């Protein structure tokens, strides 16, 4: 079984880069030929190319919630996003669930059987900076532990 850990975001746009920061930290810790760790500034169809061929994909991404819960961690399954499958008037922003649906129709055999999404509530995503807000930064170690738990590495990580 092949697993991909994929951090998504823009590392120079404040909190939007949280997925990238988490993935880069995990890449230093995980050394397993069955687990790839990748970060990408991508969305929509670009995402499909990255996840094709894996059995399980764990995604770390930023989320803007209605309540503005910065640093909140949401563990989501694809089903949680299913009501966002839609046409888009904005092809550049083809949303996550639509991209996966597209992949299922045209490359079903390459789509992962299992997807887990760790979505982290973010604040500042409109000003170019490599710095994240304090609340988002504080969340990083917790997200790392959750991902390690998800791949059954929590114990090994603690030993270090």
């Amino acid at each position, binding site marked *: 079984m092949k697993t991909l850990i994929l951090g*998504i*975001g*823009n*590392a*120079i*746009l404040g909190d*939007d880069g949280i997925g990238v920061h988490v993935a880069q930290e995990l890449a230093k810790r995980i050394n397993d030929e069955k687990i790839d760790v990748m970060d*990408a*500034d*991508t*969305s*929509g*169809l*670009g995402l499909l*190319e990255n996840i094709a061929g894996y059995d399980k994909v764990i995604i770390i*991404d*930023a*989320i*803007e919630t209605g309540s503005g819960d910065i640093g909140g961690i949401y563990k*989501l399954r694809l089903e949680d*996003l299913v*009501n*966002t499958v*839609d*046409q*888009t*008037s*904005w*092809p*550049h*922003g*083809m*949303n*996550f*669930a*639509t991209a996966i*649906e*597209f992949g299922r*129709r*045209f*490359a079903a055999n390459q789509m992962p059987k299992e997807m887990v*999404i760790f*979505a982290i509530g*973010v604040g500042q*995503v*409109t*000003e*170019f*900076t490599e710095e994240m807000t304090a609340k988002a930064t504080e969340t990083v170690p917790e997200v790392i532990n959750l991902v390690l738990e998800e791949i059954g590495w929590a114990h090994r990580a603690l030993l270090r």
Partner: protein
Amino acid sequence: MSRMRKITIDPITRLEGHGKIEIFLNAAGDVDRAYLQIPELRGFEKFCEGRPAEEMPRITTMICGVCPTAHHMASTKTLDDLWKVEPTSTAKKIRRLMYNAFQAEDHLLHFFYLAGPDFFVGPTAATAERNILGVIGKVGLEVGGKVIEARKRLRNVVRIIGGKPVMPSCGLPGGVSKAITEEERKTLIEAGEYAVDFCQFALKAFDDVVLKNKDYVDLITGDVYKHRTYYMGLVDENNKVNFYDGMIRVVDPDGKEFAKFRPQEYLDHIREHVEPWSYMKFCYLKNVGWKGFTDGEDSGIYRVAPLARLNASDGMATPLAQEAYEKLFETLGGKPVHNTLAFHWARLVEALYASERVLELARDPELTSSDIVNLPTETPKEGVGVVEAPRGTLFHHYQTDETGILTGVNLIVATTNNMAPIVMSVEKAAKSLIHKGEVSDGLLNMIEMAFRAYDPCMACGTHALPGQMPLEIVICDSESNEIKRLSRF
């Protein structure tokens, strides 16, 4: 104002872009004004200042996940100009090849995503069907596979040359960082061949489905989606469309050459107007002047991107694209074409041109020469680089101290050139389509079509989940009470 009613389409974009079209109705239920608002990503210039200029081709690719190759190329060309170094002949060919592959891929994808749902499924079809999945349903499953395959091959070209599939990192002042092997060249040739075939197929599909349907032709040529404006685009020494290099040419609403200038002279020709209700700046031709959101000879508003490039040129430099160019103008009544929906058709003509260019350059044996960079020897001070991004003319302008540390950065991104026309187009469509307060979902899509034709891209940079918010339409009565709310799902 108290007698006005307001319809909000919010957002037309994904969450992080959060664009908003607001349409104000008067007491009679007709459209008074329409506004387009886009939030601003701040601080990019400040972020860049103090960094070495050589980092810019890498940093600017991160502004936007949609057209990183355009920023990379504009930035690399700005470095050429900053150090006054001419790239080697091979380096220019390698850059052009990558750039045309990117252009073809971007255009094809957006044709099937943007124009596709409106033309193949229908402008007023049920929202649930008006999407790429609906398009595939109409034109056949195998087309979905072909779109993916064409895109995969063209992105592979960008990967081979640029080092990465999405964000290239090959550009150096005076050249590129990596030579092409003979084996790689074979892959590039195959990609070019596939893309040329696929673009011809796409144009044929457009012909069959759109041009043979009178309703669609009426829609394209009708007054709802028409503006007489100036047009701008890069042209080569024969005034043919060029995406990578050349002079910037502007034609007037009658198609006569109005200006032709070097990229370094852009500030003598382009000014930006500010409105109190928007973060956005609106570009106009300095030598005509800002006359408000209005078209015609006396208004400095100009358009960029596929149709504008075709209007501003004397043709395409490759044979198949030239045929397609001639057919477009013959069908739509000669140059210049002012019909906004024809941007979609022009996009396909350009995709074919870009694919032919990829193939032609890939077949050139000089491509695999190892003479790929001229090292800079001058002291840097100021540089300007311009390319035609898929969505229009893209300007990069840097100033540095004598060690090459950035002291000033100015970018005019492609869509900014088109902002004023987009606002005009949305307002005109709204005024033409909404009467007596009657607003259906289909009509609102037809208003959005005015916006979509430009393939605008303003939601640069972020990818926060879920990637898109519901499209909501809120209709309020004259006392601002909500009387109706429509949602796409």
